[in-house]
């Protein structure tokens, strides 16, 4: 039964092997075509912005060219040397960071409570939190303006950071709850038996376990606070004015300085791109939970 078969000497045929390789190669190509088209669709408008940011206003308006003929960094220099421009970036980064920290700090214990305990009204509370994620910022723009003016927080970073918690805290609770649910309860119980207090357990043991969840949450908090304009513009005038608002106001005030506008736009893309690059391996995980 274990006898050697005579047909063995027909051996391997290189011909068939290349055929399968060619076939699988073709399949990869049809996918690559779809992806190339889609990525081109995504990237060409961004390229156009970069292209314009490297041209002088004169070139933009007088000639139409697919790449800059007279490469210039003048537009970027304008931004880096004018405080009203570069402070826009600093302001944005300040309130985005504040918002991310606040959202995560308050969401951590709440997410823990939702993932571990049943308590009076928990389901309603959870749903109500989520409804805030659905609230249109336009609805809140005016009341926020009045509220923060009346408590003297108008045109401060903290005002914008707090306003953005409106949609970021529910989001943070939602994402973190998903991650915490994946941590077995036995870990908590063992820690308590070992004599850990709640605070020490939470910081020393539990938080490292949900570190990737915290990373994903920080990413999304950063993202939604960074991209928002309506509230941040409404709540600021000079001191905490975000870059996004600086851009819109410059357009209306100084006429159409397309080159500088494009350069400012390009610079707003960079922090996002950096953040994506660093968390690229976690994004898929966050999306897999379906909690965005």
């Amino acid at each position, binding site marked *: 039964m274990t006898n050697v078969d005579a047909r063995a000497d027909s051996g391997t045929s290189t011909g068939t092997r290349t055929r399968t390789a060619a076939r699988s190669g073709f399949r990869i190509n049809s*996918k690559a075509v*779809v*992806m190339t088209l889609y*990525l081109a669709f*995504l990237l*060409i*408008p961004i390229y*156009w*912005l970069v292209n*314009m940011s490297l041209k002088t206003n004169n070139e*933009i*308006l007088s000639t139409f060219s697919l790449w800059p003929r007279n490469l210039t960094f003048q537009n970027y220099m304008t931004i880096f040397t004018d405080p009203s421009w570069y402070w826009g970036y600093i302001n944005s980064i300040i309130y985005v960071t504040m918002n991310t920290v606040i959202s995560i700090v*308050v969401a951590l214990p*709440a997410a823990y*409570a939702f993932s*571990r*305990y*049943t*308590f*009076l009204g*928990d389901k309603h*509370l959870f749903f109500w*939190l989520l*409804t805030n*994620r*659905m*609230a*249109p910022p336009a609805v*809140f*723009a*005016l*009341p926020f*303006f*009045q509220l923060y003016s009346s408590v003297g927080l108008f045109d401060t970073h903290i005002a914008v950071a*707090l*306003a953005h*918690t409106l949609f970021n*805290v529910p989001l943070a*609770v939602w994402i973190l709850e998903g991650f915490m649910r994946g941590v077995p309860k036995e870990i908590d119980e063992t820690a308590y038996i070992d004599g850990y207090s709640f605070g020490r357990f939470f910081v020393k043991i539990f938080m490292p376990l949900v570190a990737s969840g915290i990373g994903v949450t920080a990413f999304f908090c950063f*993202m939604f606070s960074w*991209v928002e*304009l*309506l509230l941040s513009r409404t709540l600021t005038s000079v001191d905490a004015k975000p870059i*996004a608002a600086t851009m*819109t106001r410059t357009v209306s005030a100084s006429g159409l300085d*397309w080159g500088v*506008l*494009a350069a400012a*736009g390009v610079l*707003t*893309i960079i922090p*996002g*791109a950096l*953040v*994506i690059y660093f968390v*690229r391996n976690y*994004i*898929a995980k966050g999306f897999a939970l*379906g909690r*965005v």
Partner: protein
Amino acid sequence: MDKRVNQKAWLLVLPVLVLVAFSAVIPLMTVVNYSVQDSFGNNQFFWVGLEWFKETLASERIRDALGRQFMFTLIILAIEVPLGILVALNMPKKGFWASVCLVLMALPLLIPWNVVGTIWQIFGRVDIGLLGYTLDALGFDYNYTQDALDAWITIIVMDVWHWTSLVALLAYAGLQSIPEAYYQAAKIDQASRWKVFRFIELPKMSGVLTIAILLRFMDSFKIYTEPFVVTGGGPGNSTTLLSIDLVKMALGQFDLGPAAAFSIIYFLIILLVSWVFFTVMTNLDKEEGPK
């Protein structure tokens, strides 16, 4: 998952409650307060009951904006969901190119919304934008600042550009969780590519797709910045969506009462549609038996 009953958990939720009360409840109260009063300036208010609500519901301007809003949302859902699935199906499953695709696709999601508007505002211009220039050169009479249809096409293409990746990334995550054995079994059963999609991939993606559709519904219903930057709501009122109209009314004309009533109705519509959608989807799931 069995959770213990513990009322002390409220203490853990307290910080969130305080914060959300400050950033959501107080402003909402203000809105409710305005919605039932009228003001002649100088901080003098008096009670008007449901007058503003009646007016809002009867207002042709708001009805038109609502109609445009629903149309916009339906169109972008009809494009972004199938396109997102298509892209997800064609993404590389692992390796260097998968990372490249992930990073590049996430890029539009992290661009500030007004910059998204700016990009398309420039891109679509006939004089300096690649898209507008090309269309013009090809003989199309394209001008989004003057032609309502062109303006609509522009903001829809912009939204597709901006958000399809979100649907695609969610669908991709759903696809990644399908065990290889399903594909092998399908090969053995001689299932066609379509049947693999219809009977394996689509059912396995249904969870994340529900979320994707829900998110896209909510977010497209709230959209303000991007179309505002591109068209400013025009030409005429042709691209004035709900939020644009609301901001015009509240911050532009300072019509506090009507704006507040409008806000409340607006918010309720989103809640209602989301709730109906969510219930229908989860019930469909349940009918087929618990998982």
